[in-house]
């Protein structure tokens, strides 16, 4: 397609904006042809996706509105330099995530202060504790205690390694990245119930395996 043949598409609010319309609009924008009009097409194409992205992460309506504007202004500023190496949608996605991350990191407490809005009842599945306020008694015990503890950790390590991949993955995301069940479900493209089931089964299997060797064990994970 030659750029010279392009004509800026007319914006009709009632019609959905397709990917081809947006590509034409971006090319025209880069040529300096009626930038505002062409950018409006891009805006109409992506603004719902960006709102969906922010809706699950930013509680305040005003801040969501500010962030939506900030993302589109960033897109507007960068659009001239967009070289089309990836898809336009991927480029917009990356900008949205970057602007959101900057905002999130400025919140008091950083990432931990802005959890994704949970959709499930957190009391159904008790979550593993992120940190123990009391040190493990075995951690500061006698040499014998330390040896026993080491053996137990080895067994735990082996048991974790033997979990089914999805169970281990859910456990890792839940404990290591401290992600909520809903976040894990979104990222792994499974339902929150499935995530809960994986977590439950992982705990059961670990408990059974390590219990057979060492007796009663409390993982603090329900």
């Amino acid at each position, binding site marked *: 397609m030659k750029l010279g043949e392009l004509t800026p598409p007319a914006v009709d609010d009632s019609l959905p904006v397709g990917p081809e319309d947006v590509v034409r609009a971006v090319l025209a924008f880069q040529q300096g042809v009626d930038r505002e009009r062409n950018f409006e097409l891009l805006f109409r194409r992506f603004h719902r996706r960006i709102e969906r992205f922010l809706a699950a992460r930013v509680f305040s309506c005003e801040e969501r509105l500010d962030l939506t504007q900030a993302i589109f202004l960033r897109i507007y500023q960068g659009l001239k330099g967009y070289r089309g190496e990836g898809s336009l949608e991927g480029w917009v996605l990356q900008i949205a995530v970057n602007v959101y991350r900057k905002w999130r990191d400025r919140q008091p407490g950083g990432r931990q202060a802005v959890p994704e809005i949970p959709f499930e009842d957190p009391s159904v599945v008790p979550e593993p504790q992120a940190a123990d306020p009391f040190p493990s008694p075995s951690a500061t015990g006698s040499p014998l205690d330390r040896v026993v503890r080491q053996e137990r950790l080895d067994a735990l390590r082996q048991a974790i390694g033997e979990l089914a991949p999805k169970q281990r993955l859910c456990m890792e995301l839940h404990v290591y990245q401290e992600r909520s069940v809903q976040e894990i479900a979104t990222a792994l493209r499974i339902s929150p119930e499935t995530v809960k089931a994986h977590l439950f089964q992982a705990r059961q299997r670990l408990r059974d395996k390590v219990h057979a060797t060492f007796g009663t*064990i409390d993982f603090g994970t329900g």
Partner: protein
Amino acid sequence: MDERPSDFRDTLLELIESSPAPADHPSPDRWLAYQRGELAADEEAQLQEHLARCRDCFDLAAAAASFAEREAEPGAGGDVETAALWRLLRPQLGARDNVRAISAGPRRQSWRFRLPSYLAASFFVALMGMTAWNLHTRQPLPNAPIFDIYSGDRDPNRREWTMPAGPRMLVFHAEEELPVYRLVIRDAAAGRELYSYELRPNQDRAMTLYLPAGLPPGRYRMEIADGSGGRAGRVLATHRVRVAEPGRGD
């Protein structure tokens, strides 16, 4: 012997962190394809393994889910919302650096906005400096000789005051009740005006003046005049003054 939650977590962290760190991060397009279910099973599993170890990619993958969601048919309310947001956004498109104003912290203003503040600050510093200098010059100097001069002495040949070089304080005692006086120091030989000071009497009708320390040795004529109107008027008293060389005072 009970296992603690922290032991479990530590072991898990150790397991994850001992595994090799992810080298290549999948592109946004790959995460979009992943969320749309367009990848093969093994590739999908690879990306999921990557998620467990990369927080940044987790954010991107979760965001891709919002983008990959099937678009619902927009209702009338959605159109109104879109149009309202566009009206908000549109005027900002031409402005420069407006993104930073929203997404970043407080930004530095341009020099045009900062100039008045800088000028005010400079003026304030200059004013304080001048005030300090003025206070310093008016401050009574320790051991500076004091000369009392009485008004009404109009005889220029009657007496010549001899003063040592350096700072000295003159106290004029006025007989008249004028609100303001003016002291003019002239070169005795040529009559050329060298210095002129406005003096205001205190409640005892005394006026204090510190003569400039740089007044060179020589002969001078001091005229005390009516200072009304901001300039020397009728001369009330004249005194002859000799500034002696240092160490050669009378």
